[in-house]
């Protein structure tokens, strides 16, 4: 049920994804900084992403969730569940690496 619900929401979001992606890319160019570079490099070391321009936004979202008290393990589960619906699949270890990199780059 949760997965179904998520897929539904993902499908809804997908319609807006192209616009959002364009905005994100533009923003990323404008504000790209050392943290973005460091996170993107670490993420790409953990797994190969076909659209690395979206990674800084993902890293910030991970940091936001950590700040709200979501456990790293729960975020890892979410990342694995999400990517398994998107044509790729992060492992537990890759998710851990992504979260650790986000913490280091974006969480004060």
């Amino acid at each position, binding site marked *: 049920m949760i997965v179904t619900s998520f897929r539904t929401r993902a499908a809804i*979001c997908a319609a*807006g994804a192209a616009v959002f992606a364009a905005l994100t890319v533009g923003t990323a160019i404008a504000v790209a900084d050392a943290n973005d570079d460091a996170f993107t490099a670490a993420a790409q070391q953990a797994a190969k992403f076909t659209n690395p321009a979206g990674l800084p936004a*993902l890293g910030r979202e991970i940091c936001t*969730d950590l700040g709200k008290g979501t456990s*790293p393990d729960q975020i890892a589960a*979410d990342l694995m569940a999400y990517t398994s619906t998107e044509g790729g699949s992060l492992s*537990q*270890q890759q998710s*851990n690496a992504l979260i650790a990199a986000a913490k*280091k780059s974006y969480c004060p």
Partner: protein
Amino acid sequence: MVNSFRTRAAISAGAAMVAALTLVAVPTTHAQNLWGGICTGQNGKWAQWYDQPSVPEAQSLHWSQLCGTGGQRVITFTNCAALAYDGTRFSFPGTGQTQGDAESAAKADLPGGRIVTSGCNGQGLGVVSGNG
């Protein structure tokens, strides 16, 4: 909150549909086939366990009994992991190929903290727990 994350992930990671991922091949060692976990709880309570044969088994261990009410499982790991504590809060769990790497990562996240638990899978460490 989880739903919130997933929704946002769908948009941002998404910047995406980000992710057609290609797994990176890494050398396999015994410790990489074993899984452990760390939980933290109130008042400095923590537990770390090792050597489970899969992620689900590492996550189904009765960690909530070890870390008590309000506890949370903070990481499921291969190889090594460590946790630091400064008397008030825990570090982000450090992980690494070696125990030293894991401890360095934990201490880097919480300067002034001390390592309260640290170890690697494949060493027969079982379950350890403590307080502060």
